[in-house]
């Protein structure tokens, strides 16, 4: 797998490059900002881009805009956004519009190599990845007359993991349940939330995020 890293902190950039290298992922370019990102993506055609949302010069939404440009120009390239803190606004909205090959992690998460590599792999192959803390925040949002209350704790867990963009197998593995048991949970969640059950991971994330009113 080939990736481009765009991160303004030299320390993190270096750490990421080493980590990815160690795990057999080729870092084709390391950038301190998003300026030349699109150009490099077009030239290098990496499998995924790992980029910080806030980068020089204004530290507002450079990463987000670059991500949009990359996805518009090279839809096959996965994009994994990194954020310093939980932001449930623009990045999540962008994700909810089209979660294919799109992910959003908190920066602290990169210290968890497994999570990072998993997310990177998912977006590189057209899947999606949402940081658990972001999903938790979304699910905790105020909504009067909440139907989430109708879910059992286990079903809430399943809903959260689906929102993170995980596949049935991954969820079953994590919850240490069988595939059939999980499918029962999934059907139950979809029924209670009045959602159309769908086997397609991407459409499922879309439906769940839409339901979370991102």
């Amino acid at each position, binding site marked *: 797998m080939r990736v481009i890293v765009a991160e303004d*902190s030299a*320390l*993190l950039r*270096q*750490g*990421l490059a*080493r*980590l990815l290298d*160690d*795990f057999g992922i080729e870092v084709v370019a390391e950038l301190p900002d998003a300026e030349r990102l699109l150009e490099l993506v077009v030239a290098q055609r990496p499998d995924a881009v790992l980029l910080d949302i*806030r980068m020089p010069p204004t*530290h*507002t939404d450079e990463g987000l805009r670059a991500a949009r440009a990359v996805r518009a120009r090279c839809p096959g390239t996965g994009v994994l956004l990194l954020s*310093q*803190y*939980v*932001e*449930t*606004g623009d990045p999540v909205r962008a994700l909810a519009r089209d979660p294919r090959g799109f992910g959003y992690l908190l*920066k*602290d998460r*990169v*210290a*968890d*190599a*497994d999570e990072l590599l998993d997310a990177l792999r998912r977006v590189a192959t057209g899947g999606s990845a949402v940081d658990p803390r972001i999903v938790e*925040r*979304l699910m*905790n*949002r*105020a*909504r*009067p007359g*909440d139907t989430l209350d109708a879910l059992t704790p286990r079903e809430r867990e399943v809903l959260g993991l689906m929102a993170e963009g995980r596949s049935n197998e991954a969820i079953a593995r994590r919850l240490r349940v069988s595939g059939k048991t999980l499918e029962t949970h999934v059907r139950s969640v979809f029924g209670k939330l009045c959602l159309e059950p769908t086997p397609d991971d991407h459409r499922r994330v879309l439906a769940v995020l839409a339901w979370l009113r991102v």
Partner: protein
Amino acid sequence: MAAAGAVSAGAVGSWAYLRAGAGPADVARDLAVGWSFAGAGSVAWWLRPANPTGRLMLAEGVTWFVGNLQGTGVPIVFALGAWGEALNLAVLAHLLLVYPEGRADDRSERWVIRTGYALVAVGGLVRTLAYDPAVEGADASYLACGRCGPNALLLVHDHRFFAVADLAYRWAGVVLTVAVLVSLVRRWRTSGLARRRILLPAWVAVALAVAFVGWEVLHVLTPDTLAGADTYLTVPSDLSQVAVPVTFLIGLLRMRLRRASVGGLVIAAGDDPTPRRLQEELRRALGDPTLRLALCSGSTGRHGAVFTDPGGAPVRIASGAVGPSTADDGRDATADSGSRDAESMEVAPYRAGPRGQAVTVVRDGRGAPEALLVHDSALHSDPHLMRAVSAALRLCLRDSRLRRESDALASRAREAQRRLLRAADDERRRLERDLHDGAQARLVFALMGLARLRARLADGDAALRSDVAETERTLREALEELRDLAHGIHPAVLARAGLGPAVTALAERCPVPVVVAAGPERYPELVESTAYFVVCEAVGNAMRHARPRAVGVTVRPVGGRLVVEVSDDGRGGADPAGGGLRGLADRVAAIGGTLEVSSAPGDGTRIRAELPCG
């Protein structure tokens, strides 16, 4: 003593008048006019000692009887009586020309007054030198005294010389009378309303008296044309003459009555009046609609302090006129010590304007000129009034100065408090950034290193792998704690994304539904952190004490101010004076905002903060 002089002058004059052959009615009329002038003058002198008008009226009352001395039969007294027969007319002209201030307006008026006295002194003397009562008979004097005299000053025994001197004297008197009338017309035209209000009744009374005298003269000359009219006109005629001094006196005293309205000035001071309002109150108090108030602008020009009127136009007066106070106590600026005639001052806007303006300087407690009143000079005839007005104005000015000073002091204190808050705020922001860019980044880096190490040890020593995993866990906990610490110091989302996202993030972490209405607008840093603090405290209080089912937070700009509202449907009954809310109110007040708390028991709590964004 002056009154005693007037009484004795009247007594002597009347005795002489009787002796010259006048009837009791004539003597009574004569006494009434003379004594009423003297009496009114004495009252005016007593009540208005600074105004020469009273003394002039008294002088008129005394000189009124001088002509009567011709009836005494003592040669030298006769001579003096004949010489000063017209002296009271000169005094009357003087009185008319200086009423009511007691001072002439300009040089031409002073010339007329001096000429009047000079004419009596010289013309009267020349005429007296040739006046032989025995020769001239009854027509030469109003006393009709053929038996008067002899004249001690009779030096020129020439009837023709006397006739010429007498005629010249009378014509000079007529010319001078015309000059007086012209001066009076000019005086009227250049007078402000305040002075006209005083002049009019006095002049009407004089005109009436003159008209009645003219009527009587006509009656004497041609009795047939006015047959019978004399009988019933005598009483009004007498009354009109007595009325003249009384009217003069009333005019003088009316200015005194105006002091009662000075109170309006002091009342106005309570409302922190604008200079324009103050000027209006002064105009009302003094009855002078042309009055201008000029306040010391604080700057110093080429000619000393610069004064500006409420419209902002500079008012300049000659240097020296408003120099340091010369009053003995050095504090009390009065009309006497602080004013000059308009003539002696350069009052720029009035140079081409009406005469009769005078300037009163109002000084502050240290004797420095603080304000100028450019007003009708008639007002100077009442120094008490001007002193009262000056004092009231000084009070107003001192009040508004103190108000300004305390406002400035309060705003300096607020500014200092705000600077401190801002410094603390900046410091927290910097600390959070340092933690994030430094320690947090290093911890993440270290964790990534450990992850690599763990990968390499996949097939290695189990004990080593477990040590690495433990270290990783410990570091992760440290990172967690550090993140919470940094968030507590200053939430990164507030600094980087603004109030709306920060409040949304806060709401999303709450165990109770918090509905947020907040836009993406950014505000000044201190306003954002104060607003965030308000929301944190209010939501935190609600969670701790109110047990609400839901909390609503709105953050919106309302015309230059940021309005933050936090309401819940909890128990209510929060104490606005309690520690938490008290601190919140202090924090909000420090940046010039306001905090309202309404928390009726059982009716939820609503906290509303308004923060200025300027």
